[in-house]
């Protein structure tokens, strides 16, 4: 897979739940992007200096979009881009992952982005999905339309996605499981899966990234086989292999 580097115009920036969905105009990504891939998005300036890695949220014939949650300087600025603004785009990056047609997806907060993109490569399954509040939870309708049984919870109402999984542990059996969320959430999910003796699970990992192309060796994740780079060897790893300490 050869990535492309382009300057692309923003087509739309709209509020979605507690996030911003930023859509860029491009016809090439549709032909190149695969499940498990991500993009680096940067500005046309030297400050912010580094591009930021984003999972694809949606990739369509003439557009693709990412989900932005404001965390620092880069995401703050990205959350305020307007139609017609130009951004640097490098992608698709990361290792292609052959998604099963059915499976269990577990997402916390903005972890829904790659999970939603993966669901587009599936025919159905189960989604366990938790957020800080009800407003955090997006794409419920779309998941259901795509044949997913959707189980949601939110912290405002006292619920954690891990409790949801514990309650419905029987639904995890003999299926491939994919997790994306905070490290704390991933740890808890792993503990539950260990108790249930389920080891067919994968995790989307995230780390500060420099180049996205394996050049700078910044985005290391500790695994049972030593450090691996998220940009070239991930972002999806077998859950039992990664160190979460």
């Amino acid at each position, binding site marked *: 897979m*050869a*990535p492309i*580097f382009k300057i692309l115009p923003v087509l739309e920036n709209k509020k979605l739940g507690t996030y911003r969905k930023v859509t860029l105009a491009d016809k090439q990504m549709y032909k190149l992007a695969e499940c498990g891939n991500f993009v680096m998005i*940067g500005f046309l300036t*030297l*400050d*912010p*200096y*580094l*591009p930021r890695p984003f999972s694809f949220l949606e990739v369509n014939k003439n557009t693709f979009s990412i989900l932005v949650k404001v965390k620092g*300087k*880069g995401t703050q600025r990205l959350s305020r881009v307007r139609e017609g603004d130009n951004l*640097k785009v*490098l992608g698709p990056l990361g290792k292609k992952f052959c998604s099963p047609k059915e499976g269990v997806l577990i997402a916390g907060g903005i972890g829904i982005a790659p999970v939603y993109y993966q669901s587009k490569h599936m025919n159905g399954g189960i989604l366990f999905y938790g957020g800080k509040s009800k407003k955090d939870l997006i794409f419920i309708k779309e998941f259901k339309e795509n044949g997913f049984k959707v189980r949601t919870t939110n912290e405002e109402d006292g619920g954690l996605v891990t409790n949801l999984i514990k309650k419905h542990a029987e639904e995890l059996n003999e299926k491939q499981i994919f997790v994306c969320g905070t490290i704390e959430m991933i740890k808890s999910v792993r503990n539950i899966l260990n108790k249930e003796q389920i080891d067919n699970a994968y995790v989307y990992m995230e*780390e*500060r*990234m*420099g*180049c996205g*192309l*394996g*050049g*700078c*060796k*910044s*985005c*290391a*994740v*500790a695994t049972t086989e*030593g*450090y691996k780079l998220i940009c*070239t060897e991930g972002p999806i790893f077998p859950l039992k292999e990664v160190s979460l300490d």
Partner: protein
Amino acid sequence: MIDLSTKFGSLKLKNPILLASGVWDVPYTKLIDFSKLGGVVCKGVSLNPKEGNPPPRITETPCGVINSIGLENKGLDNFINEILPGIKALGTQIFVNIFGESIEEFKKIASKIEGVAGFEVNISCPNVGKGGESFGRDPKMVFSITKAICDVTELPVIVKLTPSAVNIEETAQAAKEGGATAVTVSNTFPGLAIDIEKKEPLFKRITGGLSGPAIKPLALYNVYKVKNSVDIPIIGSGGIANYKDVLEFLIAGATAVQLGSIIFNNPLAPIEILDNLQCWFEDNSYKNLKDLYKK
């Protein structure tokens, strides 16, 4: 036809643009044509594999980046057998950045690598426990390492200096006396980032190496200082982001330059810079690099 070729020692580069060590890897060949570049410097190679530092390994600063990678690499044997053959096919001059924790290690590495344009001796990495910057701050050590390497190889030896030396002219002089063909001025500057949520340094090794446009004036000044006190070719490195920066380094005294973290900001920067440099020479009716020094 504009000739941007440059020479130092027995080496001729088709232009003064090199890619620095530790910022690129083979996937970049899908985006830029390496054969257009003057050369590339490979990621630091150590005798034995180094797993690198625990994450986080990078953070952004205004117009810059601090890294704490820790020279992650798979060691000399893997480099010779698995990495070097592919890199040799890139169609440009290959310099191999070598890292030793002792003089003996440097000698072993330098004596085993063949068929490349030269070595860049890493005595300036700020992110390792042994060797690196601790060697590069001491002019006596710089001399001893340089001499030991030059004794075991016929290939040109470039010494990458640290800006943390008390007096960079002294370490440049030591490299020259040790037999270096050129010096790279310079590696990253030590810097600190704090995690305000954890209320502690962001990196496990406390400090990291600052690079990017933020350090350009500092690196440029070091080039100027070395140029005016030591008679040795200089490869300028530090925060170059566009062709004007390249011109500044060349005018300050560099024979060639290295591009580093700018390729994170814009992976096409090496080719864009080269194209713009050509245009600038054309606009000024300059035919070659020597014309740059006409007043």
